[in-house]
């Protein structure tokens, strides 16, 4: 069929344009050039930190993003699940790397993976997803429909369509709290890939869309897990864990106003012990206003289990404030079962990952990663001066008395005019509640001495937990968790200095823990020089070094 006259006319017009090629080239204003070259630079940069993830048999796949130059990659759990422990990650320069699974967050659908090979890797710049506003430009980069055969990722552009979205759990576990919504095209294969802002800062991990009757293709409605949530979980995932999300331990409903009202609360929750009751209005959590049930689910759902936070609540017109420790969202074993269900069974991979990088143990995504992280923290516990016994004298400002603390390999003693207490660590620690007002105190201090003296091997279980704040609204600390003879002891280390900040001992999640605050200014190498000891809202002792030993 011959071309229509219209097409002919267009051809003529094109040819005329070519003939007039001698005319001066189109001049762009310097401003336009600058914006365009910046845009090109951003796209170039965001592509470099995006990876394509494949099953080793090259069946399933998805996308991911490099978040540190030593090769940590964040992706979706549902992308890594069919791959098992070992997978392939392709960078945009065309190289294919082996990669090993580190940790899993099944609730947030997040997996952390370690690239194996020569670094440094081009890490994405981490943004602050809490400051993202509706209407801002957004870039989605990834491997939709597994198109990137040369591993150059696909880039789609759009805007932020919504922030603080709450997406109800789909199926059993998956919950998208406080996620970002974008109209940049997200298709199957984009899962696990990055959402960037217009400056190329990483603000989210794409993984879900509204599809319904259009089929599984982009409809201009995609969701990304906020990067702030992801980064809170990264330390725990890096430690090889299957991480759980936080829960308040209460159910809430939105009433007109709007207000968020507690409809029921578990008596075993810390929130209950700190005074929250059914009928109270929750005003804020973690410094975020919670006028609706969705807002509360958003504020809590982005936090790892065990997170210490501040809640504000109103009763009879009066505002109360409390510091609470959030519990786990899931029952013990629930996440492990879910992970097992999604992970391929039977045949071990033909090439097993090196034992140094991966080992399997029930309850962990990668036990080798946990072992390494645990070793680092156990080393940080060592105090050269603690070789044999610890024998120190303090002044207790809370009671106005002197206290002598003695910790040895086989005992812990607290001697003061108020009373003399001791515990025998060879017996069950949970039942030796002395002193009664701080039942976990002596067991916790004995655990610390054991670690400080380099005797961790005698403890039942020692493992890196991830990062949790020692104080509500404070920065997260690296946490080492010890379980020994019925007692659970957590030690909090400042991430930059490695300095021990506090020790928390508990026997039962339904009871208040004993907290030993070593102060923000304690000297490295001389921990336990000062201690503020609290149980729930009560102060048990405030110890500072005695002026001179008598």
């Amino acid at each position, binding site marked *: 069929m011959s071309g*229509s*006259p*219209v097409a002919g006319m267009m051809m003529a017009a094109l040819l005329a344009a070519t003939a007039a090629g001698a005319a001066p080239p189109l001049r762009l204003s310097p401003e336009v050039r600058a914006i365009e070259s910046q845009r090109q630079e951003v796209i170039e940069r965001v592509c470099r930190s995006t990876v394509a993830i494949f099953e080793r048999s090259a069946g399933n796949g998805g996308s991911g993003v490099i978040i540190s130059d030593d090769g940590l990659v964040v992706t979706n759990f549902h992308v890594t699940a069919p791959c098992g422990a070992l997978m392939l990650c392709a960078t945009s320069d065309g190289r294919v790397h082996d990669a090993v699974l580190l940790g899993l967050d099944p609730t947030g659908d997040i997996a952390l993976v370690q690239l194996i090979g020569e670094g440094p890797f081009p890490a994405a710049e981490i943004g602050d997803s809490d*400051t993202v*506003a*509706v*209407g*801002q*430009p957004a870039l989605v980069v990834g491997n939709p429909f597994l198109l990137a055969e040369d591993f150059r990722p696909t880039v789609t552009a*759009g*805007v*932020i*369509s*919504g922030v*603080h*979205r*709450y997406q109800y759990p789909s199926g059993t576990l998956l919950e998208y709290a406080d996620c970002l*919504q974008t*109209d940049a095209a997200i298709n199957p294969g984009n899962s696990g890939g990055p959402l960037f802002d217009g400056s190329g800062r990483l603000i989210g991990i794409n993984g879900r869309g*509204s599809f*319904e*009757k*259009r089929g599984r293709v*982009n*409809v*201009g*409605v995609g969701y990304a897990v906020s990067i702030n949530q992801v980064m809170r979980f990264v330390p725990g995932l890096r430690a090889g864990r299957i991480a759980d999300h936080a829960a308040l331990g209460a159910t809430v409903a*939105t009433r*007109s106003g*709007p207000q968020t009202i507690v409809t029921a609360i578990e008596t075993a929750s810390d929130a209950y012990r700190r005074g929250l009751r059914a009928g109270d209005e929750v005003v804020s959590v973690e410094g975020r206003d919670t*006028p*609706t049930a*969705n807002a509360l689910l958003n504020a809590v759902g982005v936090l790892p289990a065990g997170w210490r936070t501040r809640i504000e609540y109103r009763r009879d017109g009066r505002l109360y404030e409390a510091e609470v420790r959030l519990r786990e969202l899931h029952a013990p074993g629930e996440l492990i079962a879910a992970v097992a269900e999604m992970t391929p069974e039977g045949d071990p991979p033909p090439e097993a990952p090196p034992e140094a990088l991966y080992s399997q143990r029930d309850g962990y995504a990668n036990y080798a990663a946990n072992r390494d992280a645990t070793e680092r923290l156990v080393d940080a516990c060592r105090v050269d001066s603690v070789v044999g016994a610890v024998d120190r004298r303090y002044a207790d400002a809370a009671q106005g008395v002197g206290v002598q603390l003695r910790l040895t390999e086989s005992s812990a003693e607290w001697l003061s005019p108020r009373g003399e207490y001791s515990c025998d660590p060879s017996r069950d620690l949970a039942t030796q509640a002395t002193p009664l007002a701080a039942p976990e105190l002596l067991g916790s201090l004995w655990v610390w001495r054991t670690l400080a003296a380099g005797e961790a091997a005698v403890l039942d279980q020692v493992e890196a937990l991830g990062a949790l704040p020692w104080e509500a609204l404070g920065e997260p600390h690296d946490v080492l968790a010890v379980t020994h003879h019925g007692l659970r002891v957590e030690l909090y280390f400042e991430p930059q200095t490695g300095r021990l900040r506090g020790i928390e001992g508990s026997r039962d999640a339904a009871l208040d823990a004993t907290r030993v605050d070593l102060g923000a200014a304690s000297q490295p190498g001389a921990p336990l020089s000062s201690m503020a000891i609290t149980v729930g809202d009560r102060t048990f002792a405030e110890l500072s070094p005695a002026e001179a030993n008598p």
Partner: protein
Amino acid sequence: MRANHLLPLAALAVLGLSPPARATDAGGAPAASVVSNAQDAVVKLFGAGGVAGLEGYQTGVFIDDTGALLTIDSPVLDGGAVALVDALGDRYEGRVEGVDRLTGLALVRSESTEPPPAWIDLQPRDAPRRGERLWVLSNAFKIAAGAEPVTVQRARSAGVVAMPLAGGPLGGPNRPPIGAPAPGTPVLLLDAVTSNPGAGGGLVLDESGEAVGLVGAECRAESTGAWVNYALPTAAVAGALERLASGASAETGAEVANSSRRPFEEFGVFLIPEIMARTPAYVEGVAPGSAAETAGLRPDDLIVAVGGASTGALQAARRLAAESLRQTGAIELLVLREGEIVEIVLTQPR
């Protein structure tokens, strides 16, 4: 308290001014404040449905301070009453006042005694330029609950065309679609996936925050399965409001089309009679000595585009011609003659 706080804000929205960005917009694009102002006039509608693939929710936009709002006709409005959730999260009843058959728009009145948080003046304005950047706000997929702001999408105008489809998700071969504009109605095509469950009645803005249209009902071509992403431009909205006000809400599309200006006849062009909804725009005759004859138009020419916008049906050709005449004083046509496309420009003789 509410009126004091909100009325000035609403007034700003109406004037298209951008008040200082809110605290939450710190660091945001200036565009974000345009969008967040308009959010206050958008309302979430909940009504019948929620079963058998029918959504029980959609979008509406307040158009004045009395609580009148426009949305699209759909099964959600069955029963004549809907639940409204405004931008503040306040919930009240709404009553359906009328439906305009030509555009598929429905007028709903809020039963609240308070003025709405904000409203949008849907004065007719020129359609956006092709390629112009637009914002689309809608309650798509019922993502936003309570006071949460609805989904914001970016789109570009792909031009104003005559509504090509008679079908829709609910319109089988023998059943007219509910809420879809009559074929030939001028609609604003969008280049983004804006036609989603619940998006109908959503607000389309230009970059300055001025309203350019309302998202139409979901429509799907029966032959290709493609969904059309489109909005009803403000001119069509104004027409719908006029008809609704005059009580002509039951008027059919053909009646409305026939009552409007007859641009072709002014140039001496006679089209074939409109015997069915999608009558093609064939030229039946050209008056001797007329401007149309001078321009080279002949009987049996089929008009396939007017003013650069393709048109499938007679009604659309008339409407676009009237629009083109009003704007430029001329009508540019592409006609199909013996398998070839011929360009004809009708200009008024001096």
